Structures are given as structure tokens and as C-alpha cells.
């Protein structure tokens, strides 16, 4: 890939905890990626529309409200419907261990919990995109 990796960072749902996602925006930007942050309160439809418009390679969703079970797979489904499911979909926040497997089955590539290093996310994104 020659151009810079484009990441759409988004907060789905009504959750207002944005410390984590903002830190990730700064971190990925310092790692040379292009990062667009949607801000709070995005519906899955808005997120997918922005991803299309921005031609994002990665969508990074942050959620700490417990609504991940509904909102994250919905983004994955919409991506499939729009046939842009090549976009790498990752998530982070407070997501209980027991929910991760089911999220992965429903189209979320990876889930990063509290305490994750920025470098880990960066490496994951680069690794996953180099395979496609």
C-alpha cells in the first residue's frame, strides 16, 4: 500500500467516554496514519456513510456503555450491505471477555480492552491490512 492508512475513529451510540478513542487518534496519527474522528453519538448508519465518504481502510469503534452487542455487529452488517466489508473493523472499550468471541463471529476483527498499548493496535492494523 502506497498511500497512508486511513482510519475512521468513531463513537457509536450514546456513550460519552472519549478519553480512550482520543488517545488512540493521537497515537495512530503519530504512527503516520491519517485519522478522522467522528465525535460522539454516531449511529451505525452515520459511521458507515462516513467510512464510505472518507474511503477509510479501518474503522475503529470505541464503546464503554454496554451497547456493543447491538451496535458493533450492526456496523459490520451495514458494511456488508454496502459491499465495503474489506474495511477492517476493530473495536475497543469496556467489552467483557465473554462477549468477544460472538463479536468476532459477527464481523469484528479484533477487540482491544483497557491497558492495550498503542503500538499493539498500530501493529495489528498494519499486519491485517498487509494481508489484504
Amino acid at each position: 500500500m502506497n498511500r497512508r492508512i486511513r482510519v475512521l475513529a468513531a463513537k457509536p451510540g450514546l456513550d460519552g467516554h472519549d478519553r480512550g478513542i482520543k488517545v488512540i487518534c493521537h497515537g495512530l496519527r503519530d504512527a503516520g496514519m491519517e485519522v478522522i474522528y467522528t465525535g460522539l453519538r454516531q449511529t451505525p448508519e452515520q459511521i458507515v456513510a462516513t467510512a464510505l465518504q472518507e474511503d477509510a481502510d479501518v474503522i475503529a469503534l470505541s464503546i464503554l456503555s454496554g451497547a456493543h452487542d447491538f451496535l458493533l455487529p450492526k456496523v459490520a452488517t451495514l458494511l456488508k450491505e454496502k459491499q465495503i466489508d474489506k474495511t477492517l473493523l476493530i473495536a475497543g472499550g469496556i467489552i467483557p471477555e465473554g462477549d468477544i468471541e460472538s463479536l468476532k463471529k459477527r464481523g469484528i476483527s479484533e477487540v482491544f480492552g483497557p491497558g492495550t498499548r498503542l503500538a499493539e493496535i498500530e501493529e495489528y492494523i498494519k499486519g491485517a491490512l498487509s494481508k489484504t
Partner: protein
Amino acid sequence: MGEDINEIRKEKKRWAEHSMKKPVEKHLSDWDDPLELLYTPDDLEDSDYLSDIGFPGEYPFVRGIHPAMYLGRPWTKRQYAGFGTAEETNERYKYLLSQGQTGLSVAFDLPTQIGYDSDYAISEGEVGKVGVAVDSLRDMEIIFDGLSLDKISTSMTINAPAGILLAMYVAVAEKQSIPSEKLRGTIQNDILKEYTARGTYIFPPRPSLRLITDIFGFCSKKIPLWNTINVGGYHMREAGCSAVQEIAFSFSNAIAYIEAGLKAGLDIDAFAPRISWIFNTHNKIFEEVAKYRAARKVWANLLRNRFKAKNPKSWMLRFHTQTSGVSLTAQQPENNLIRVAYQALAAVLGGAQSLAACSYDEALAIPTEKSVRLSLRTQQILAHEAGVTDTVDPLGGSYYIEALTKKMEHKINELIAKIDDAGGAIPAIENGYIQKEIEARAYKIQREIEQNQRTIVGVNEYKVAEKVDAALFKADPDVAQRQIKKLESLKSSRDSKKVQAALSAVQEAAKGNDNLMPHFMVAVKSYATLGEICDVLREVFGEYHAVGTV
């Protein structure tokens, strides 16, 4: 003091030169000032005990707001709780009260906090998750069923629609034949910090301030014991700011509320005594204690000297504190019990009026009943076994604590002045200054953790390979369905003409200058839903759109 300060200074120099084998690197405070290796009487040279520190219960309140502090009245043990439906929350409250909790603290779900009903499309997935879902007065009646509202004090974490939830609470009390004059409790009602952290805003700043001053005016006449606003530094600290910024940013917000109240024609002493606070008690024990001592003094000075309040109650910084959620780790979660215990200790040494101790599983999920009980027990062990309540302000007089208190007082005043000079809190939020400061420090801390300049036990050091096997809270997936059914039956059974009339009256009042609170009272009693009332206000006031800072 008997010793000669110059002699002490001379001896300190000698000691440092002769006794220290090699120079040591100074540690930095939370706000990045170097801390001394040792504090001695010469660090307090310019401090006058009677005028700078004084006695508890008296201006400037450095040592506490009550003369006898915990010997007179223990702090309120108030765990933040609420989840699922009103019925489940009612059960949890009865349980917590039976276990010795002394006040309630209601957590609402996000749709409630942002003024949406459970059946709105945008609420899907969020109903009953981070708190209890309240769509109408009916839900509030169930939450407080069997609890006499004249016997408990209730804190509600609600901001943008605070007036409406308060109206519901008063209506529940009316049904219990309890006059509003007897109600005790708190609404958060602190909208400005929602723009800079936390994020449950609805309306733009100016109409939001009007809602707040309407509540001030209404409560001073009808609910005199109610804490009409609970100004918060907690959430900005969680989002990344320092201890000094926590106090200065939240005080600047409070200055904006006070100025709005004065502009609305209210007397400072009519509403200032009902301003209460929520702060964040973080890891560094002594800095947190000094923070609270300094904050009390800065606030007392602001109210007495700048706003000319006459009533000493207006000068008192009464605060609730919660231990720091963001300091908790998902790795080795049991370690969080220890963190919470130290933070709770700092809160009590700092003179808190009310405390919530976080639960050790918070970085993983909503706390379970067992983990919440452990948090309550942490408080009870402090109160009954640790001896920290035996005397007032036990750390007062420590060279370190007094020097830190002074330093923080100075730093907080400096930052408040800086925000004042830039036009106050509202412009500082609208141009993104506060948000950027918070973000920058959050990122700096993360980098320090990753570069091992900051040790987080279990995260970047002392790690173990682990499979987290904590028994986690599992939200009931049927909550939303039950809540939506309840709404349907409510809407078919209420008098819709009455509802429409009440909503129109709210709309008219919102367009004009009438106090909105009496109109909210009529509306909630007609069983108009929270979403319906907020929709009417959204139409008149518009909605806030966040400024981009990232």
C-alpha cells in the same frame, strides 16, 4: 514555632550536603511540579496559622467545613447504582440500604440522560445498560416504591434534563404525602462539564444555563434542602486532566453558573449554599488530601470576596467524591480493591462529606452485587476500624501537606485567573481550550505508561499471564422490550389531552422567560414522557454540536 527558621534552613543545607550519598532525582507532582525530597518548617515560613489555615468549621475552612467533622457526623456512604428496569433498581436500593448504605445515588441509562425514551430508534442497544431507564413518572414511582422520601437523601446523576427528573421526584414525594420542603438530595445539573467530558449534553450552553437558573430559583422557594447543582471535577479528571485542573476547571464552571444566577436576579446567598460538588480521588494520597484542603480555601475566598456572599454556608465547599474509575485496571482486577482502599483513605483524610468507592470489576463490566458490597465494606472498615475519624484533619500540620496545600491553592488561583481573562468557562469550552488541555494530558499519560516512565502494577510491570475469571454482571437482554411495553401501556392509559396541553405550556414557557419548573411539574404529572418533554425543548432551544478538537 520555637526554632529559628534560618537555623533550620542552614541545618537542612548541611544535612543535604553531608548525608546524601548521591543526588536523587526529584519526583513530579500530578501537575508536573517537582516535589522536595524532604519538607521542613522553613517550607511553611510565610504561613500564618490563624489567617491561612484556621479552625475547622470556620473561614477559610482548610481543615474541614464542620467543626467536629466525622466525630459529629460520619460521611455519607453513597454507592452509585442503578441498572435495567425501575423494578430491578428498586430491589438493589432496598438491598444496599439494608447493608448500611446511608444515601442513594441513581445511575440513569444513557437515553434517559440525553432525554430520549426507550422506544426511540437511537436508544436501541442502550436501554437499561449503564443505569436505570426512566421514561415517565411511572418509572420513578417504581424506583422509590416502599422507600420514604423524607427518610433518605437521593443523589441523581442527571444533567441536561435534570429539572424534569427533579420534577418527577417531587411528584413521587407528593404521592407519598411528603411536602417538597422535606426532600433532601442532589441533582448533578452541571451541564458545562458535559461539553468537556462525559458527553450527555442536549441543548447549547445558553439555554442550558437558563434551565439551571430556573432550578436555582424554584428550589430556593420550594425545595430549600435540595442541592440544586453538583458541580463536577470528577469527569474531567477521569478524561485526563490534573488535580489542579480538576479544581480550576470545575470552579470556573461554577463561576459561570453563579454569574448566570446573579444575572437572573437571584441573591447569592439564596442559591450558593445549595451548590455541592463531586470530585475525583485519585492515586496520590497526599496530593489528593492537599487538593481538598486547598480547594476549600479557594472556594471560600471566591464566594466571600469575589461574590460578596454573607452567609458562611455559601462559602463552604461541600463535596462528594468517588474514587478514580480510570485508575482501575482490567489486568489482575483484584488489585483494584487495594487502589480503591487507598483512594478512599485519601478522600476521608481530605474531609469528604460523601463517598462512593469504585468496584474492582469496573474496568470489565457493570459491578456485581458482590463487588459493590466490597466497596461499601471498604468504606465501613475505614469508618469503624482504621481510626481515621478519631480527630479532625489528621494530616494538618504535616510540613508536606501544608506546603502542598499552599502550592495547590496558588496554582488553582492562577488557572482560574487565566480562564477568567479569556472570558470565562463558556468561551474556554466553545473554543475547545478545556477539551484540548484534557486530551493532551491523557495522551501524555498513555505515552508515559508505554515508555515505562509511569508504573501501573499489572499493566506495564508485574504482569502475569491470566485468564480473567471474575463473575461479571450480565445485563438482561429483555429490559428494552419490557420498558417499551410499559411505555405502550402508559400511552394508551393516560389522558392525552392533558398531556398535549402540558407540553404546549412547556413550549410557551421555553420561548419566554417563565420559570420552567412549574411547567415540568404539570407535564410529568400528566405522564408526559421524558422524551416528549425534551423534544419540545429541543425544538425551542436547538441542540448542541460538539466542537472538533482531535
